[in-house]
């Protein structure tokens, strides 16, 4: 990839001159070669660890899984599948006992595709909404000057630093039937044993774990806003709400959108919490969990599902960047000049 990108500008030959003397074009060319030399190891490494497996998965997804040969009772290889594996998931068609296809009956993984798609998006929507609101509130508090502010900033890092697997076990314990949550609130809720409580248990655990990340990113955005702007607004008689709506929100929007984008894409691949807290039971099977469950029932069908998952996440990211203006690339490149 990198070689192809370098090609257009490889004319300039000579050594390094003082920067001011070079034409802009020439400067970009020499910098370009230097840049791609520096970038090459990263790009090659990412190509190996991401692009190769993805292509591998796509190839696999067009193969049938091995099936049982009725005459011998042994497995035989599946052969090319065309789009069968994708059709299997998208329209939830399973092979009927006598040949042909039927709608996947309840109790098969195929029947769960759209459910888990819905679950995944539900989790994403709800957790990110909570995290944004709570994170904003936390960020505003943390932006204030008060004694012990650094204590709060350290404290919010604690949930962030705890491994998700530990978080899952911790909340699983808190939400046990005899656990502290039920005792504290005097309830008798089967948190991980019934559909809505299980969903909320996972949402609460996720919000606890990831709100700090959101809060810190928003805080960073808040701190970019110069105090003078607020002072001026205050002098002009703007109310607290007006200051928030007319100054804070618009100015923090770029940072906020990037934070939301990161969280959304992270939530869409949620696996650890439901895998440990509910094993995907009670309507908490996310796409990632479905893929992992399928791996042991057939690689190739699983590869199709993981490709679909990847495309869904890619599409969401695209929509975010294209239409909602979450420009993480800009955020990373726009250099300190803006300051």
């Amino acid at each position, binding site marked *: 990839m990198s070689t192809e990108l370098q090609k257009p500008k490889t004319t300039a030959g000579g050594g390094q001159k003082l920067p001011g003397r070079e034409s802009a074009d020439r400067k970009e060319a020499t910098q370009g070669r230097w840049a791609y030399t520096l970038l090459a190891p990263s790009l090659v490494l990412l190509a190996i660890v991401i692009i190769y497996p993805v292509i591998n998965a796509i190839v696999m997804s067009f193969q049938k899984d091995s099936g*049982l040969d009725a005459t011998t009772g042994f497995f035989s290889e599946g*052969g090319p599948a065309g789009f069968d594996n994708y059709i299997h998931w998208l329209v939830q068609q399973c092979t009927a006992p006598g040949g042909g296809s039927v709608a996947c009956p309840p109790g098969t993984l195929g029947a769960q595709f759209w459910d888990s798609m819905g679950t995944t998006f539900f989790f994403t929507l709800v957790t990110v909404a909570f995290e944004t609101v709570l994170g904003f509130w936390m960020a505003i508090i943390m932006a204030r000057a008060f004694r012990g502010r650094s204590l709060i900033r350290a404290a919010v890092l604690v949930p962030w630093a705890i491994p998700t697997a530990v978080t899952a076990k911790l909340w699983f314990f808190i939400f046990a039937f005899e656990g502290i949550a039920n005792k504290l609130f005097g309830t*008798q809720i089967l948190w991980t044993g019934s559909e809505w409580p299980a969903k909320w248990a996972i949402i609460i655990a996720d919000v606890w774990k990831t709100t700090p990340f959101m809060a810190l990113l928003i805080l960073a955005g808040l701190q970019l806003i110069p105090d003078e702007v607020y002072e001026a607004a205050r002098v002009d008689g703007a109310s607290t709400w007006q200051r928030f709506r007319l100054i804070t929100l618009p100015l923090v929007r770029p940072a906020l959108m990037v934070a939301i984008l990161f969280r959304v894409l992270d939530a869409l691949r949620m696996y650890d919490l439901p895998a440990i807290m509910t094993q995907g039971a009670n309507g908490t099977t996310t796409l990632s969990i479905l893929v992992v469950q399928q791996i042991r029932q057939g690689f190739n069908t699983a590869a199709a599902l993981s490709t679909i998952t990847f495309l869904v996440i890619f599409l969401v990211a695209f929509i975010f960047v294209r239409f909602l203006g979450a420009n993480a690339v800009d955020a990373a490149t726009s250099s300190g000049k803006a300051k």
Partner: protein
Amino acid sequence: MKSKKLLLPAAIAGVLAMSLTACGGGGGGGGSASSGGGLSGDAANNLDGRGPITYVQGKDNSNVVRPLIDKWNAAHPNEKVTFKEQSDQADQQHDDLVQNFQAKNPNYDVMSVDVVWTAEFAAKGWLQPLKDKTSIPTDGMLDATIKSATYNGTLYAAPQSSDGGILYYRSDLVPTPPKTWDEMMSMCSIAKAHNIGCYAGQFQKYEGLTVNAAEAINSAGGKIVDDSGKAAVNTDQAKAGLNNLVQAYKDGNIPTEAITYQEEQGRQAFEDGKLLFLRNWPYVYNLAKTDGSSTVKDTFKMAPLPGKSGPGASSLGGHNVAMSVYSKNKATVSDFLKFITSEETQRFYATQGSLAPVLTKLYDDQALVAKLPYLPVLKTSIQNAVPRPVTPFYPAVTKAVQDNAYAALKGEKSVDTAISDMQKAIESAGAK
């Protein structure tokens, strides 16, 4: 996965297998060209081979494997066994075996295989059929354990250890244990009078629910798959069986929170004195007798699971020992299998590791019963036990059972719909 090319001639299958290995199908080794009776491919090789072998098993928690192997090695200096210890987690043991089979690793000679994996590995052509030269004596073994090691009418593994469900009951409240399900339900008024839950098993949506649903269905005379591995659950008996659980849950005889129970939560509730009856494995006995927090130390006893008109049909746990088709020293492995299933070894398993033996007569052995007081009850349980579905698609079948039984328990669908969905889902698992 949804292929229906079941009648492809074996030769074409072979060619496909070869051409596809580069792209990787998950499938099996040499077995695909095998035709019925005689041995072929890897299964026909090295039948007389003797020499050192490797025994593969999950984490040896109770330290039974090493002493056994030491004993074997002392007697067989030229055919020593090396112990390869796997993870303590079933999924990882399974994956480790699959990977070594796919690599045709000749150093995985003989392995301990969970009863529910046996059919899958056999169908992949990885396990040596235990017949002719490699056969082992099976007389005196519990029927259900042999069934769990049999695929398509051929024995593929030697039963190693067994396990079955037991009914724990509060002997202070119930003087004589119920023999049938209906009898047990009628005793639930006692639980109500004492303001405790009546009955619980494992009803969370995981493997334990398959075990419990299968017990309910089998005890009522139904079955999940037939002897050839085909779905056979859509019967009135199966419906009646599942309905027993569903009705009990609806009536409150199974407490609401029991739907979150795995083995441990149920044990906890029973030890806290919150349950009249508990279906669980033999391991609970010692804990409930000795746990500091147990409130029922002297007030519980054990009985066989209640059935329709007598003892119920427990689901079978435990392990089998299988021989890899890729082993170079099959004659040695065959001797080792006989050694594992011998009375002496089985007795050692029981005394040292508290593992339930596969030989019927050991259940009446006074010395053993003194050490493991649950043996007589367990004997009844295992004698009436039914293996969990013997099918190469076990992960799909257990999912079909769990998902639908769970939905029925929670009242999300009727028992009739649940059973017919279960039937269809199992059929679709087999139709690949």
